[in-house]
């Protein structure tokens, strides 16, 4: 079988359609939400927050989708380090998704820089030097939360993700050129993979596992902090990343490709989606319960902004619990049975639902601290999401058509072919 893939016309239509819709939303935003004028201090109401809303939506989507595509590379690296063979049948799919890291990385970095150096203190309160000097808590944090460290560390992290990811991809692509590996070459190949995968994981721990979500998202609520926040963000994006891999595997399978990816592989991807949804809930709940239990005013502020208090429910009350229902109750009850995890339609449905749910999760991380109660889930919000989805579809499609869909000389390929759960 030829493992070269040609994009169907439908795929291209959807890709350009989504990018077009996204650009339309973006132009709409630039035209009507005045993103380049700082909000008038003290102004109230819808109009005043439109400019903030524009940037908050961009921040939410760019960070979310960057972390999701980067999670695909993390998936490759952890499975490499665990010497997992089963993933090889669809490894090119995860590689294709991770190949979007540089493009989304540049977009995200651009948006972050616009926020920090455009003086958007409505998004990041700590960029306003005068306010920080007066604020006891923010000046205490200024060693960490300052534009210089933010910029340099973000740049370093994105570049390292890109370089190490590129190395992992090129190792895999290069293995296609020569014939099947003998024992020594195969051993060296696995060793090289393991070395770069472990380097990536270390960087990943220092970035997504700790500092990056603190800097990019948690610093919106600059007075508040939670050490668990990064893990929570990681779980959120990792489960979405695995879901995205599952969607593309199912798509290619529908196109008659990926002959070695079977129900067994789908079953394991389904297990990952199930397990990490539970893991997400564990972190979501742990963060919530510790704050609820200790009841410190400076900590509960985060949840008061969202759910409100016993007397008055907050603006995000419904969204907050819908988030829990989509990301916990649905995966728990639907993905629990073996038959569902082996059912292509159900896994597709759950993967889309999980990605949507985690997108909502990011939405309620970013919005309360920026636009407060004036949030909307209007075509603008979804349009910007479409732009990023379209970009990912474009990049993934390009990678999948350019390279063979099978890592045909990988030493673990046979293990993946006979994989049996």
């Amino acid at each position: 079988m030829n493992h070269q893939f040609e994009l169907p016309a439908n795929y291209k239509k959807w890709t350009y359609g989504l990018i077009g819709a996204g650009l339309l939303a973006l132009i709409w935003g630039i035209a009507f939400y005045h993103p380049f004028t700082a909000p008038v201090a003290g102004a109230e109401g819808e109009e005043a927050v439109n400019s903030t809303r524009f940037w908050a939506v961009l921040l939410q989507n760019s960070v979310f989708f960057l972390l999701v595509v980067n999670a695909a590379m993390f998936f490759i690296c952890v499975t490499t380090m665990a010497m997992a063979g089963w993933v090889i049948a669809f490894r090119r799919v995860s590689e294709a998704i991770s190949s979007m890291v540089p493009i989304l990385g540049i977009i995200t970095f651009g948006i972050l820089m616009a926020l920090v150096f455009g003086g958007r203190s409505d998004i990041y309160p700590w960029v306003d030097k005068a306010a920080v000097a007066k604020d006891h808590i923010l000046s205490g944090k200024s060693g960490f939360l300052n534009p210089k460290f933010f910029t340099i560390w973000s740049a370093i992290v994105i570049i390292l993700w890109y370089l190490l990811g590129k190395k992992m991809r090129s190792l895999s692509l290069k293995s296609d050129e020569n014939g099947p590996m003998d024992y020594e070459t195969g051993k060296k190949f696995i060793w090289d993979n393991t070395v770069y995968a472990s380097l990536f994981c270390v960087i990943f721990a220092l970035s997504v596992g700790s500092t990056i979500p603190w800097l990019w998202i948690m610093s919106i609520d600059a007075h508040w902090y939670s050490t668990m926040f990064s893990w929570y963000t990681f779980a959120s994006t990792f489960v979405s990343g695995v879901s995205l891999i599952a969607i593309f595997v199912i798509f290619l399978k529908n196109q008659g490709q990926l002959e070695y990816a079977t129900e067994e592989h789908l079953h394991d991807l389904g297990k990952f989606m199930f397990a990490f949804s539970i893991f997400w809930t564990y972190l979501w709940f742990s963060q919530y319960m510790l704050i609820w239990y200790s009841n410190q005013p400076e900590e509960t502020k985060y949840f008061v902004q969202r759910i409100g208090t016993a007397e008055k429910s907050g603006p995000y009350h419904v969204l907050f619990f819908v988030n829990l229902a989509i990301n916990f109750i649905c995966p728990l009850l639907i993905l629990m049975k073996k038959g569902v995890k082996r059912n292509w339609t159900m896994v597709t449905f759950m993967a889309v639902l999980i990605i949507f749910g985690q997108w909502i999760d990011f939405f309620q991380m970013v919005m309360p601290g920026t636009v407060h109660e004036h949030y909307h889930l209007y075509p603008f919000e979804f349009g910007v999401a479409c732009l990023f989805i379209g970009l990912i579809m474009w990049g993934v499609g390009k990678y999948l058509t350019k390279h063979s869909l099978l890592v045909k000389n990988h030493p673990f390929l046979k293990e993946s072919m006979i994989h049996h759960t």
Partner: protein
Amino acid sequence: MAGGIKKFVVGCFSDEKVLFPAVKNVRRSGYKIHDVYTPFPVHGLDHAMGLRETSLHTAGFIYGITGTTTALTGISYILVHDWPLNIGGKPHFSLPAWIPITFELTVLFAAVGMVLTFCYLCNLAPFVKKHHFHPRATDDLFVMVIECTDKTNDAEVQQFLQNAGATEVNVQEAETGWWIGRYHKEQKLYKEEKGY
């Protein structure tokens, strides 16, 4: 579980590559496989033997939700109705604080319940002695046991197993099901068994 002494034809195989086709042929010929004893878990053997999927996980789910309801009803009865205490000014009905305990009880019920169910299904309990069809099944032999009915011609089955590649074939009578320490003959120590 009905016990009773039954007759079995036992065939020993030294290689799983011989065992797999033999299992398939035995099933195709319509003989009833009582069980196959292997020194280690053989991947795909359950499938080849045509064993149905286990329902143990469904039992686990039921035990789990039993644990959840036990915890929630227990705690809410105690902390809301029976003996309400003011703990840090929290409401009496404070669900977040109960979740860890609820989770633990769910896991505990599911785990203990599943272990006990598993033991029951495998006829395992303290003081229950099991008949060993061949002592080397725990060492290096794959032992296939075929159950005989009234109509089974055991000579024919023995011949069949021989042809399928069994290195050693014999007929044994053993009690099945739950029997606690009852034996029709004295059990020998592993060392004293033939073939050690």
